[in-house]
Structures are given as C-alpha cells and as structure tokens.
C-alpha cells in the first residue's frame, strides 16, 4: 500500500510537472530595431544570424499520423509523414520590426543540400516540394488570418488570403517580399510584410499575435516540424510578442503609414482626374464628378495640404492625420462607396 501510494505520489508529481510543459506554447519577442537587414543575402550574412542572436529553434515534429491527412487539402502539396530513419534537421527563424514593417528570416539546415540542388531540375524531385508554411493572425480573437506557402528551392510563393479584399482587408501578395537563397548547408528565406498591408493592426501599442511556421521536408522524408499546432490551428500557434515601441518609435510607424496613405490618396485622386476621367464627358460622369467626387477630393487634399510638407509633420499633425488614415489609404473604396450612393439615389429617383 505504501509503495503504491508513494508511486502514485511520484506519478502525480510527474503529471503536475509535465502538464504545464505540455501546455506551454512558444513565445518569441519581436523588437523594434534600427537598421534591420533587408533581403535574404543581408540577413544570411548578418551578425545576428552568424552569432545566433535572437535565433528561435523550438520546433517540434508535426503530429505523427496527421500529416498524411493533409493530402485531402486540394490547394497545396505538402511533404507527408516522416520516415523512421529520417534525422532531425534544424529549422530556425529570426524576427524584428521597424517603422516600415515586419521582417522574418528563416534558415533551414539540409545536410543533403548538394544532392537536393542537383536533382532540382527534375519536375518530380521532392526537393521542389520542400516548403515553409507560414501562418499568422494579427491579434488573438476575431481577427483574420493569413497563410503564405513558400517553396524555397524553386522560388515560388502562394498567398492564401483568408479574408476578402475590402477597405478592411488586403491581400498580402501585392507588396509582400519573399526571397530565398540556397546556402552551403541549407536554404535561407527572407519575408517582409509592410505595415501598409495590415495597418489597422500594426503593433503601435505592442501586443501578442498568433504565429506559426511549419517546415515540410519531403526530400529527406523528414516529415514536418511546427512551431505550434497544426495547419490553420490558430489557437495553438505560438505567440509572437511585439514589444511595445517607444513613443518615438510609435510616431515613426504612424508617420510612415500616414505618409504612405497621403501619397496613395494623391495618386488615386490624380488617376481619377486624369486617367479614369470621371470628369470626362465621353467616358466619365461629369455630374458625379462635380457634385460628389471633386468636393471629397478637395476636402481631403485641403486637409493633407494644411499639414505642410510630410517630412515636417509634427507629432500633433500625425495624431490628427491618423484619425483619417483609412480615408486616405482606401480612397479607391471610398470612391466606390460614393458612386454606389450616387447611383442608388439616381436609380430610385427615376422610373
């Protein structure tokens, strides 16, 4: 009896100790930094990568027996299960952010790199299906999520934007940079996402995002490794903690966003005047232009001009401008909305 009690006590202690470990999720601190390297060459040769500063390697095997089920996913081809003989391969990432956007560098070791590269021209080579699957949701609840599928050895990237393009959501494929480079012992991949694509959720107050990187290794039959959870399992992804920027850094992010928005607005407005030509009697609708569009363009232009030169904007002006960020950033959708309202009135006033 004593023995079994003692044994059960030990087992309970093990369970108590192991439970939090099991439930523990990965966290990574993403810091605002100056002079972040840009591009895969710059990152692969950077001091932080050479010295392993900020390196994240806590990947676990993709749940055995589940990778095969992913064959039912008609959208992408993944690597399948690990064979019994496969050796683990190191997968690592680094992340940082600045006023321009969010930087991710991934480095994947591959002992058979020479053989993999030699066989790459064969369209059936599993090396072509080597892949990273990058997921993130910018927040923890009621936020959209994004999936980027990268085949680093063939330089292909697929974007699965799980939202619908609108004034509140835009595809990553328009401005995201992804580039990969074979290295002596693997492959390096650089990803950059500008804040202008996800500006509503830029971490100007810091905060946690959900993030996962899954690596598929069909060439070596090494299966997959994950930083947290299965594909699309946003609640089990790791947490990316954007460390709160200083006031100065926050202002830099906002200033850049507002500048982007201001110049984007001017470009859209100029296009509407000179190319789409709403005021052109032949191909436009001068009445709509005169009554609805021109006053709105004038209003927003006057607002932007009142702040003076963008390089000289004060903190107070940036603060004021941020309240109108969407008006400037999404002026094309604003035009659609104005047009819809105008046509609705017109169509209900005629029989």
């Amino acid at each position, binding site marked *: 009896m004593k023995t079994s009690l003692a044994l059960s006590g030990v087992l309970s202690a093990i369970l108590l100790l192991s439970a939090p470990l099991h439930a523990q999720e990965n966290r990574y601190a993403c810091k605002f930094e100056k002079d972040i390297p840009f591009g895969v060459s710059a990152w692969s040769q950077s001091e932080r990568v050479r010295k392993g500063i900020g390196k994240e390697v806590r990947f676990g095997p993709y749940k055995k027996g589940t990778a095969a089920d992913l064959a039912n996913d008609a959208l992408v081809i993944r690597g399948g299960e690990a064979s019994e003989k496969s050796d683990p391969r190191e997968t690592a990432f680094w992340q940082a952010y600045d006023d321009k956007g969010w930087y991710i560098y991934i480095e994947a070791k591959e002992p058979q790199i020479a053989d993999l590269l030699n066989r790459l021209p064969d369209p059936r080579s599993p090396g072509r299906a080597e892949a990273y699957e990058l997921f993130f949701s910018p927040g923890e609840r009621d936020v959209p999520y994004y999936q980027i599928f990268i085949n680093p050895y063939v330089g292909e990237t697929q974007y699965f934007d799980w939202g619908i393009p609108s004034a509140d959501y835009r595809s990553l494929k328009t401005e995201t940079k992804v580039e990969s480079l074979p290295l002596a012992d693997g492959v390096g991949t650089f990803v950059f996402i500008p804040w202008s694509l996800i500006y509503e959720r830029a971490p100007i107050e810091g905060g946690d995002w959900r993030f996962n990187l899954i690596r598929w290794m069909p060439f070596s039959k090494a299966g997959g490794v994950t930083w947290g959870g299965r594909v699309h399992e946003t609640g089990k992804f790791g947490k990316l903690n954007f460390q709160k920027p200083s006031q100065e850094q926050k202002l830099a992010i906002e200033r850049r966003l507002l500048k982007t928005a201001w110049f984007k607005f001017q470009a859209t407005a100029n296009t509407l005047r000179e190319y789409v030509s709403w005021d052109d009697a032949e191909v436009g609708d001068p009445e709509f232009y005169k009554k609805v569009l021109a006053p709105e363009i004038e209003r927003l232009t006057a607002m932007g001009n009142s702040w003076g030169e963008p390089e000289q904007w004060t903190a107070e002006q940036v603060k004021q401008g941020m309240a109108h960020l969407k008006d400037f950033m999404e002026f094309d959708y604003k035009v*659609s909305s104005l047009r819809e309202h105008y046509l609705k009135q017109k169509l209900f006033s005629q029989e």
Partner: protein
Amino acid sequence: MKITHLPNIGVTALALLLATQARAPAAPKPAGVDIQIHEVPAISSIKRLPDQPQRDLQGRNELHFLAAKGEFEPASFLIRSNEDLEGVELKAGALKGRKGAVIAAANLDIKVVKVWYQDGTAWYSYFADPSHRERVPELLLKDETLVRVDDARRENLLRVGGSYQSISYPLEEAKEFFNYLAEPVSDASTLQPFGLKAGENKQIWVTLRVPDDAAPGVYTGTITLEQQGRKLGEVEVKARVLPFELPAPKTYYDLDKKFFVSIYQTGVLKIADALGIPEEEAIAMQREVYRNLKAHNVVNPRSESSLRVWFEEKTNDPAKGLKLLKTELALMKEAGLDTKPLLSCESTYFSRKPKAEMSQEEFETGGESLKARIGLLRDTVKEVLGHTDIYTTAFDEAGVSLIKVIREQNQFLADYPDLKMWITTSRNKHSNMMGYLVDYANQAGWPNREEAATWHATGAKIASYASPHTGVENPDVYRRWEGLARYKANYDGSFNYKLYTQLHPTLYKRQKANTWNDSVGGSATFRSFNIAYPTKGGLIDTLAWEGFREGIDDIRYATLLKQRAQAAEASGSQEARHLGRKALIWLETTNMETADLNAVRLEMINYILELDNLLK
C-alpha cells in the same frame, strides 16, 4: 382571432371590421424605450456581432431593394434597443407602386440572423481550429430559438423535437450519427417573436421576391416593429423594380455558352433509402432541396443517382437503382431545373484495377457491363428528359494509376460518341495525361484565366472547387468567388463542394457525424462544409448561401449587360454602339477580385438602363 367568436354580422361588415383592425395604429412606444434601426449592406465582409459597433450604417429606418422582375434580392437592417425586450415582432405590409401596382407582403421574407459558435477561424476559412470557438453570424431563421447559444460554455444547442441537444462537441465524443432526415428539427414557417438585448444589435434579413409580372417602378411600404401591440419603430421600405428580367447566366468569353451553376451533394433519395426513410418523405425532402437550389440560382445540379453501385454490388437491387434515378430526374424536371445537358454522377469505369491485372475475359466482361450500364443511363435520361446530352464522370481526384484505368476502360464507350466526361482535377494534373477525354474539368483552387485557356484549347469547359470549399460564413466570399471573379476568369461554371455535409449512402453506419456540428474531427482540420443546413422539412438558409445567390445574380446582370452591348453593336446607332463598348471596357478592366461588388452591381444596372434607352 377565431371568427366563430365574432357576433353574427354580415360579410361586408366583417370585412370592414377586419380592415379597420388591420389599419388601426399600434399603441405608442413605451416611454424610455429607444429603438435604433439602421440599414446595412446585406452582402458584406463585415462580421456583424451583436456587441460591436458597425461603421457602415446606412439610412435610419429605411430599407432599399433594387431588383429585376422575378429576382430574389436581399436587404438587411440592424435593430438596437436601450432596454431588454422580449416578444418583439416585425410585420410587413404590402409594397405599393404607381397606378395601383402592388407587391404582396408575402413577397417579403423576413428572418433573424442567428449568431452562434463555430470553431476557430470561422468567417474566414473552411479549415477550422477545433481548439477554440468563435461567435459568428450564419443562420437565417424564422424562429431563432431553433438554436440556443450557451455563451458561458461557448456552445450551441439544437432544438430536436421538444428538447435541446448539444451540437458543439469533439467528434470523438459522438456515439452515433445524427439522422437529419428523420430527426424532428424544423424552423417555423413564419417569423416568430424574438428578443432584443439592451445595447446589442440584432440583424434582420429581408428577401424580396419580385413577382415575374411586377410592373416596373418604385414601390413603397413599411415593416413595423411591435411588442404586444405597442409600436416600437417602423422601417420604410422602398423597392425599385427594374424594367427587365435577368437572363440565365452565360460565360464571359462566349455569350452563347451556358454558365453552369452546380454544387455537390444535393441528392437525398439514396441516403434516404439506406436510412429507411419512407419514399414519400424522401421525395418531399428532395423536392424542397430542388426548390431551394433553384431559388439560389443552382439550376444545373448533378444527378446523384449512379447506377453503378446498384448494378455491380451484388447486395443491391438494380430495379431500385433505376427507380431512384427516374424519380430524381422527374423531380429535377418538375422543379424547372436545367437538365440539358445533365451532369450525372454515373461513373465510366467498372473496376479500379488496371487491365494488366485482369484476365482478358474479365476485362471484356467488365467492359460490356459498363457499356450496358451507360446505355441504360442514356435510355433512361432520354425517356424522362427527352435527350442524351449527358456528362458522366470517373474517379474523384484520380492519381496517375487511376487515370490510366480511366483511359483503358474508355474504349468501351466508343459507341456513344456524344457522351461527355466531367472530372475533378487540380492544376496541371490531368490535362496532359487525359485531357483528350475530358469535356468538363472541375479543378481545385482559385480561378484564373491561364487555367481556363488550357482546358478551352480542346473545347473543354472548366469550373473549380475548393476556392474556397463551403463552410465559410462570410457571404462576400461566395458572392465574389462563385460570381464575377470566377466569371471574369473565363470559367464555365460554379461547381463547389458542397451543399452540406451528408451521411455517406453506404458508409453511414460507420459515421458518427452530426452535420450541425462544426467539428468534423479527423486531423485535416476541416470544418463542416455547409452552405445550407438540412432538416427533415428542407434547408435552412445561411448568409453564405445568400452570398452565393447574389454572386450568380451578378453574373446574370453581367450577361444582360453584354447582351445589351451586343444589341447596341448591331443597332446601327453610333451612340448606342459606343456606349455598349464603354460598358464592355469597364467590365473588362474592373478587377472583380477586389472591387466593391455592391457598386459594381449598380454600375451594371445603370449601363443596362442607359443602353435600353438608346435601343428603344
């Protein structure tokens, strides 16, 4: 009101009394109750949760419809009260136009948008995260109490007969499958009183069915909000009936080619037979499914009765298989669906084995059986539908070895040169190895013009599925991707997977699924692929299903615009020709993957009306 309890008065007096009562204004709104009613765009990517502010509120106490004759058109509004209220009712009046024109109140179908819990990533993806649940608007209900939501446990309960059952649980905990064809689950036939929580939005969904013969013009009416006879608010309804009907959708690249609108798993009869559902009940359910499909523009559903399983599995009765096929075809015809050509689930193989693994005799015998079966299918279709324009199919998502089997066994169909084949495929998968056999490729993934060009090179058609699968609650997803984005990619149809998650006709005994439960289990992290939910009496509509209908309606408007431009080209009027071309350039250069589709719809209507004026 029971008329038998009225005093004995004349018919005229009774009618007068009833009319007076109908016109009698409701008692005034109770003091202190503040009701805010705002129109919102019906089809939108904005997830309208009760406690979240909405930044796209439109007119106050207004509701607008702009629709063609015969069209179903949705509109929506939010109600917000400063107090908890129970027993709130909405009552629609008739819509009145000029010169005595009337659209009956019955043509306004009012439902409550039910917000419930679905697995993580709801609203965005058909992949689910079973580790947590999120609130999401989805169901359109006449009686919102059909589903109860437990916020503390973040789970849903479905009313089955007189009690509620949890429909939020891991599949591993299920003991048996849920028989949606027999269980007493049903929505009300009319809008039931509902509750309002102080400070929360309640979304109301109104679908106007414009009569085919409605006179064009602007109609007005009201929907009143009442509680126990007290008027709480009023919505002014304005509907403009356009002076045309919408044509059937045609492809963007060729106005003479049909744009097929199909969806998987619309059949009821076979699973109902397997489950022992009485024949008349199965037929009633199938009839209701077809009615609903037609109302949502799905006019080319598959015939899902395959003779193969009845003829080649010894336990089955061929006569029964043939009877089910005939019944199904007759019901499709009765529902007014477009059955020419017929997309059939009949498979053009007799074995999964390659020829090399069969004796010559086995191969020849199997081939003759295949030939006879396809002959019987053709004869049956000819008998019921009067034609033999049929697309049959083969293995689902066939790999290389099965592609070779299809090719080998296809030789037995040489006597049927008009027989066509549709298949499921993925990018670059089948076009090189068996493209010469394929007439309609249903290809996984998002549409694009390069894929269309590959299949069009041989005259074959292309549709797609999994772009995305059903299950996503956001109506704008299906409006866009089943609608103009697909159409502009030169695709020939919509062919998605699937109407709802059905029990498998032969494997159901091993299944433990409940189609109402979003957690389907397994490790591929899919959610339940439902764009409508099945009940014994028919389908429960969803926001996504309404989005689907609007997507196809967008294509029908685009088809009409192209038809008008074509007429303008032939009209001899320079002004009309130029306007038609301007419209075509606008249609071509507008990016339907990103455009505001509500604005696009109005622009199409505006062009059509202006062209009509010039073509008079």
